[in-house]
């Protein structure tokens, strides 16, 4: 029987599994306890309400944040750069593709606050990345 087909012992399998599992859970804990530099939204109720509305109306089905989401509509990470009135225009009446969700003024303001905050977290524009020969990218 060739070496490659010779079975591993249960002990070796268990050791390998435990090493991987411990590494994975350590990595997980590190991520949980050390968020990247974005500041927590402790008192920004309007932003959190905006995030809740984003989820309530399932905006993610059609739009993306940082390129993650549905592709029927555009990425909205930095839509605030176009100004609050631009956003309001879409939210008030919808478009020929996007339904009118009949949002009230307060909901519209909360969504705008959410987009305003998102815009401060970074840029989703792929043109803003430096590309290196080793395959890495950096913003």
């Amino acid at each position, binding site marked *: 029987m060739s*070496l*490659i*087909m*010779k*079975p*591993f012992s*249960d002990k070796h*399998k268990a050791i*390998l*599994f435990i090493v*991987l599992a411990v*590494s*994975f859970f350590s*990595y997980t804990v590190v*991520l*949980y306890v*050390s*968020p*990247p530099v*974005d500041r*927590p*939204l*402790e008192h920004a109720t309007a932003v*959190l309400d905006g*995030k809740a509305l*984003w*989820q*309530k*109306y*399932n*905006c*993610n*089905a*059609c739009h*993306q944040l*940082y*390129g*993650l*989401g*549905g*592709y*029927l509509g*555009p*990425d909205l990470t930095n839509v605030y750069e176009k100004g609050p009135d631009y956003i309001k225009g879409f939210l008030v009446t919808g478009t*020929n*593709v*996007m*339904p009118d969700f009949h949002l009230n003024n307060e909901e519209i303001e909360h969504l705008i606050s959410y987009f305003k905050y998102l815009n401060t*977290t*970074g840029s*989703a*524009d*792929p*043109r803003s*990345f430096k*590309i*290196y020969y080793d*395959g*890495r*990218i950096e913003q």
Partner: protein
Amino acid sequence: MAASNNKNTAFPKLFIVSALLLLCCGLVFGLIGGLQYIIPGFWRNTLSFEKVRPLHVSSMVFWIIIALVGVVLSFLQQHGTRRNYSPFLLRAQLILLCLAVLLIFISYFRGLFGGREYWEFPPYISIFIIASWILFLVNVIASLITIKKQPVYIWMWLTGICFFLFTFLESYLWLIPYFNRHLVNDMTVQWKSYGSMVGSWNMIMYGSSIFLMDKISGSKTYSHSRIAFLLYFLGLFNLMFNWGHHLYTVPTHPYVHYIAYAVSMTELLILGRMILTWRQSLTAAQKFRHNIAYRFLLFGDVWILLTLVLALAMSIPAINVYTHGTYITVGHTMGATIGINTFLILGMAYNLLTDECREPNRKIIIAGLNLANIALFVFWISLIVAGVLKAAWQMNPERLPYAAMLDSVKPWLISFVVAGFVLTTGLLMIVLPLLKSYLSCYFTSHLFSLRSLNAKKQKRELSLE
């Protein structure tokens, strides 16, 4: 046919039957969603895209998950001689899963969302899924006589089931304010859980396909071999650490990006092995070509190769910056969920649903399989070309309007939708005859067992008189 009377083997197959019905639903919702891409405003006020997309995604995700539960429970009985689990837990598990799917559909149709990718339903429904999954885990563990010297597929099933539970729970951490308040870290944790979750159901699926291949070839050498375990550990390593490739453009910790990049590149070993063993695969293909389930596995292998090449390219950040947020990602997902998941699971479903019943018309099944594969290839290429055009738009120094990009990709989206219709036809040519033949066999044997039970009862009554 008589064997279908065996309740032990018949009940797990109900998971597969339910999953096949979900696949049909997923295909229909997929077509509606496709039409909404090319006909702006199609059903905008009745069943708009933010409802159709989750209906499609959830149907397809639950097709994969529920079918895999049925496949594992069925194969587990064939693996050991022990009658292996509590029928009560099994029934409870199916009822909980079906109830969850029903509630999910109702909530989507009514426009009630939790609003997170994949699990877009209100969070309370996930309690049914978690409870059902715990019952599944209990059933699987309770069925194993020993954990010593088990083949690789048992390791893969147990790992996949445990990691699915962990990652599913992890995907709900956003309900805790600490996670919800850190927007970027919330996205990081969300995509960490999703990346590993897909890895976990793939782990269950590849384990099941190794079991099926052992069953077809009649040899268990591979599933106990060193190479099988090396590939399992490589898969597990990727499941645990490569999820960061979803986040290359998200401003999270740079080490998340570096780890994902380095770990993803280890998949080159899998690609290398596939290329090195292609001659062996060809011999096996010649040997088992008459076995329909094997044909599904074979097509699945072709899609693994294509998807792996695309995935490896997309795992390089310098390429990902172009492909991210484009239809190339959709093409990759479709290649994986249809080309790999659906074909492999259909192969397992075919093997299980026909082992005690008459096979459906083979010619129709083969024609459906060929048609589905050709259509999927056109579907996949159309998405990739549309993705390249969107990437060119995204990278264009002049900021052209979004509508200009939509106009340029429209012919490719039309070809994607047309191919989607043909793909659906091909898949329905497989699923409907398979369901028809199994259900007629199931009900015939059920009626037969009822009749024989009545006859025995009458006989006993007569003898008592």
